[in-house]
């Protein structure tokens, strides 16, 4: 970094803590959004324990557990991606971030199979077949008549809460894809010129120095066999907000992703493990 560039960097306004506070504030509004839905769940579950129990029997515990493991693992790789950026290991950060996106995609594919299986069996909010099915449950004595709406409420809340959560997974994946694109940017050629065609350059050599005067690279001495010299610079622009000195974009995306994981930590036992 030249003296001029260093001066520019000082004048560039950065507020790392401010950026993170902003993200946390946003996450808190998300917590309140889901908090309201969890409250709705709690109140109805207290009112219709048997209805919820019957509804819960229809969820696939194995698939839910697999998705839990996938999300927990994706949270780990997200954290590792930030750890790698902090240490300047860009390749490792790219690997971990890509793995995290892959986990998100696997989660969504599982969700797709789960939902489509249920919808195939006509289990969805407002389904007439589901209402009839619940009536049969009452006749068979599985659910007391006054608990009937509990089953319907269970499925409505299941679709609403896991659906909203799934939407958050998608948004998280899009945010991660943007960061990944920044990290993957290819180097580009900055300059190409041909300054050494004059005879008097014979006996000279080309030396590249860093700002402290340390030699980074030097060429052979130009003798009479050298007709011309091409100088080509390739440099990797540090992606904005994703490099060892400033990785706030990656960190905030990580915070969002961990929140998605946190919500699932509660959704899993409350929906899949109640029967």
């Amino acid at each position, binding site marked *: 970094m030249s003296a001029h560039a260093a001066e520019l*960097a*000082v004048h560039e306004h*950065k*507020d*790392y*803590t401010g950026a*993170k*506070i902003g993200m*946390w*504030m946003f996450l*808190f509004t998300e*917590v*309140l959004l889901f*908090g309201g839905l969890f*409250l709705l769940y*709690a*109140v109805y579950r*207290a*009112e219709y324990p048997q209805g919820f129990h019957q509804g819960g029997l229809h969820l696939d*515990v194995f698939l839910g*557990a697999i998705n*839990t*493991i996938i999300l*927990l*693992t994706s*949270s*780990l790789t*997200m*954290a*590792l991606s930030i*750890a790698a950026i*902090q*240490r300047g290991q860009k390749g490792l950060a790219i690997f971990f971030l890509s793995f995290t996106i892959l986990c998100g995609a696997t989660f969504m594919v599982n969700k797709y199979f789960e939902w489509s299986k249920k919808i195939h069996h006509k289990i969805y909010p407002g389904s007439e077949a589901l209402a009839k099915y619940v009536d049969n449950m009452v006749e068979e004595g599985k659910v007391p008549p006054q608990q009937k709406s509990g089953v319907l409420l269970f499925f409505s809340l299941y679709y609403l809460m896991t659906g909203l959560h799934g939407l958050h997974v998608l948004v998280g994946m899009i945010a991660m894809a943007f960061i990944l694109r920044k990290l993957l940017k290819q180097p580009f050629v900055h300059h190409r010129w041909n300054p050494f065609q004059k005879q008097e350059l014979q006996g000279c050599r080309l030396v590249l120095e860093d700002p402290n005067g340390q030699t980074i690279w030097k060429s052979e001495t130009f003798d009479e066999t050298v007709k011309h010299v091409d100088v080509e610079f390739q440099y990797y622009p540090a992606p904005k907000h994703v490099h060892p*000195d*400033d990785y706030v974009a990656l*960190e905030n995306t*990580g*915070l969002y992703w*961990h929140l998605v*994981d*946190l919500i699932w*930590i*509660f959704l*899993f*036992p*409350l929906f899949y*493990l*109640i029967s």
Partner: protein
Amino acid sequence: MEHHDNQQHLISYGTYITVWLSLLILTGLTVAVAGVHLGKYNVFIALLVAAFKSSLVLLYFMHLRYENRLFHAMFLVVLFTITVIVALTYVDTLAR
């Protein structure tokens, strides 16, 4: 250039992996406990384990443990707000 405020807290890869393993073990525990019939305590235990898992994610993965006091205060305000909302709702629904 004072934007290095959180970079002294380098958490080792090993710590993250330990946290992840604990989270997996706790998930196994929730599934196992759900299979045992304990009546009302099932929900209680499930929520307790979920709360413990959440604190691991918050403290380590989300770096809350290494953030300054402002972040802790903000988090506690939100926790308090939710507690008040839940308590008030229960006062209403239980008294009906």
